[in-house]
């Protein structure tokens, strides 16, 4: 009982970094702007966007994408319907989306272990650009064009998922 309480408490106080829908403004501003209306989740045909419950902590009500389960397929429906400007209404080109950045853990990624696998490369919506194959074998992320949609993460057949999306908020200092 106490354990579950403390875990809930730690969840409430801990600030996690989430993958936000396409067009999300920087995380701090996003949390302030988002009015928790759920429209982005409702308009999402793929059920990619989930609304955080209070269980997840203080950012409850805000939309997140769990790329591992259902990634963003970049249909670009949600940014334009956001009433609060938390998602950039003007964003219509999927190429311009920057939700995060795919990062490959080479110790888990199959081609780095000598196994031919192109699942992420084949499924990448910015096809042949955001993920390139070095020597037609090793996947490399192009940080300039990767949208962070997470499709790669959702299809990765490695034993432990080898390609994961680091949300933009987490990358903020790195990209600077």
């Amino acid at each position, binding site marked *: 009982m106490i354990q579950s309480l403390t875990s809930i408490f730690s969840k409430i106080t801990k600030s996690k970094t989430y993958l936000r829908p396409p067009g999300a403004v920087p995380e701090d501003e996003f949390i302030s702007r988002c009015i928790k209306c759920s429209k982005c989740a409702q308009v999402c*045909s*793929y059920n990619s966007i989930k609304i955080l419950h209070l269980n997840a902590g203080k950012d409850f009500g805000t939309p997140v994408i769990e790329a591992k389960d259902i990634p963003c*397929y970049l*249909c670009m429906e949600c940014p334009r319907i956001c009433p609060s400007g938390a998602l950039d209404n003007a964003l219509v080109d999927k190429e311009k989306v920057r939700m995060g950045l795919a990062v490959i853990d080479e*110790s*888990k990624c*199959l081609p780095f*272990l*000598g*196994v*031919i*696998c*192109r*699942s992420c490369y*084949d499924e990448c919506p910015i096809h*042949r650009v955001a993920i390139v*194959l070095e*020597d*037609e*074998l090793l996947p490399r992320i192009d940080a300039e064009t990767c949208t962070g949609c997470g499709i790669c993460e*959702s*299809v*990765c*057949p*490695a*034993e*432990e998922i080898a390609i994961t999306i680091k949300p933009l908020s987490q990358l903020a200092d790195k990209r600077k």
Partner: protein
Amino acid sequence: MALTRREFLKNSAASAAAAAIGVSLFANQSVFASETVWHKSVCRYCGVGCGVMLGVEGGKPVAVKGDTKNTINKGLLCVKGFYLHKVITGKDRLLKPLIRKNDKLVEASWDEAMELVAAKFKESIEANGPDSVAFYGSGQAETEETYVANKLFKGHIGTNNMEGNPRLCMASAVGGYLTTFGADEPVGSYDDLDHAEMFFLIGSNTAESHPVLYDRLVARKKANPSTKIVAIDPRKTPTNKIIDLHLQVKPGYDLAVMHAIAKVLIEEGYTDEKFISDSVNFSNGKEPITYEEYKTFLKKFTPEYASEQAGIPAEDIVKAAKLFGQTSRVVSMWTMGVNQRIAGVWLNNLIHNLHLLTGKLGKPGSDSLSLTGQPNACGGVREGGGLCHLLPAHRKVAKEAHRQQIADIWNVPVTNIQPKPGKHTMAMFDAISKGEIKNLYVMCTNPAHSLPNLNKYLQGMKDCFMVVAESFHPTETSKIADVVLPAAFWGEKEGVYGCTERRSQYMPKALKPQGEARWDADILIDLAKRLGHGKNFEHFKSAEDIWNEYLKCTKGKDMDLTGAPYSRLKEVRGLRWPVPSVDHPGTTHRFVEGDPLFPKDKAEGRRMYFYGKPDGKAVIFARPDKGPAEPVDAEYPIAMMTGRVLEHFHTSTMTGQVPQLVRAVPKPYVEVHPDDAKKIGLTDRGMAKVITRRGELELMVKLSDRPLPGNVFLPWHWPEKLSNLLTNDVFDPGSKEPEYKVCACKVEKA
């Protein structure tokens, strides 16, 4: 408990340290109880024949890694092979025999199941003759298994109704090799890939269907950047990444292109006239013709004509032809895009034509190499004679001498073997639908998923008494079977696989079969005994016994394997026949000096002697050009193509057992060009209805520029959406291989 590679290396390192101080580190942790034992084997999937090492720990499969000493893959694997060990213990493993009772499959004992099968077969053979039963095998079964089935059905039961799924995949290539060269299977070998200066890919998505070979092309191109790769394919595939010129033809209209290339080769003077006069005959398919007549025949096939037929620029055809002519070493590779066609054999002939015209054959870096789809289609079925017109080791039932030779080895009166070929696959399932064949034994394949135009054949399969020996249940076929027998899977049985390049490789038994599963050959021997033919099968105590009897069949044939007994195969990474003696290294190029069967005396200075033909001359065929059997029309305006993806294999009975692979490509889809999608009103990942004259399917749409506008592409792996409900069951009159690759459909918003 599968360790990641890193963990494995760490544990080995720690163990080494422990050994240094005389401590056993992981002694009381069961997962590390014993060191992983690695068994040298061959990949269970496609026909490339990659060497794999199967890691076993405490009697359980824990990992598969590439065999670095195998020259085919040099340690590399594709993602399917990497997860092979997970298939063995897959969730659908069939552990006990099943019998249909009151229209339900219920568990039964082996004895009960086998008694039922034997009684049914006996009853049918006695009442309706031996041709009322049939066997349908597989290019994934071991050579030994197919051999036993062959011996039982053709030699003892006395029916030639013995087929295998290579009919649906390789038959046209066999037809091509036989008609052109007089002998089945490639002239060269994979070695040529490392020397080629140009690759000519036709109807082959090498990157996805034969990924390890693709990597060799990549490596070749990297080592020698001037290497050119030309592809003829109606679809942009992942292979496109490395190709220099893509002739994106309309599906089914590439015959004219091949003729046009031949025409340009002749006109531009790229032909090897000495080779042609030495080693080539010409034929129009019915009778011999002269070189001049062949040239006259080609007149019609100008690049412009071909361009009009195939919908590609004429200059690209000329460019492709010039590349073919200018480069000194060319390897052509093709697979189902060529074979699964109504003019499959012809198209095979036309590919060989180019090599014969230019003499680019039988020398390092030049070959006309048909890629196989299954690991043992070449070894077990083509060489083992697992088709209705064949007997082991490239023999034909129609030839009395051949029947006699085999009858002697089998120890049966020659009259047991019928001289008339049995029913080929499509005729067999047609006969089953009509009730002419009452009992069917299916081994290691899934016809209720893989036959074309399934609606036509499913009812017949349900009605007939069908025995399915499979490792997994349910499959579409085992679901409708009357008896389902649990078969030992890869790694649980020993045997030999023969891959694309005539190479036979040994697979060890590294594990006990799961549950009550039994080795297919063992089941067939059991059946033979119960049918009263036990005497000639009694001496088969092990796989080696069967192999040794098979080797007797190959002795002195063009595919002589006498020099490849188990003792030797266990040591080496496969041997390429002919290997007439145990000290022979195997053959990389046939019909030339170095081939042990090359008749120097007859050759008289000729570089190549095609000893399968009476005069040692291969044939260049003047075949008419022919479009698909079902061209698009106003009602069905879109051409439908079928194919594979990298992560799945065939009917996904194996890859479907691996959660990681399922995750990568989880569900069926149809690839539609965005222009078409716009016209029809389809959206990415929305649903579409694909309708042909034979059926309809609702599928998820994947927008892609891979097919041309006017074409759609369907991978065929998933049982829940059988693309074969849509495909056309017309077949090549020569090879009897159905035209899976193209039919007409319409696509609607669902």
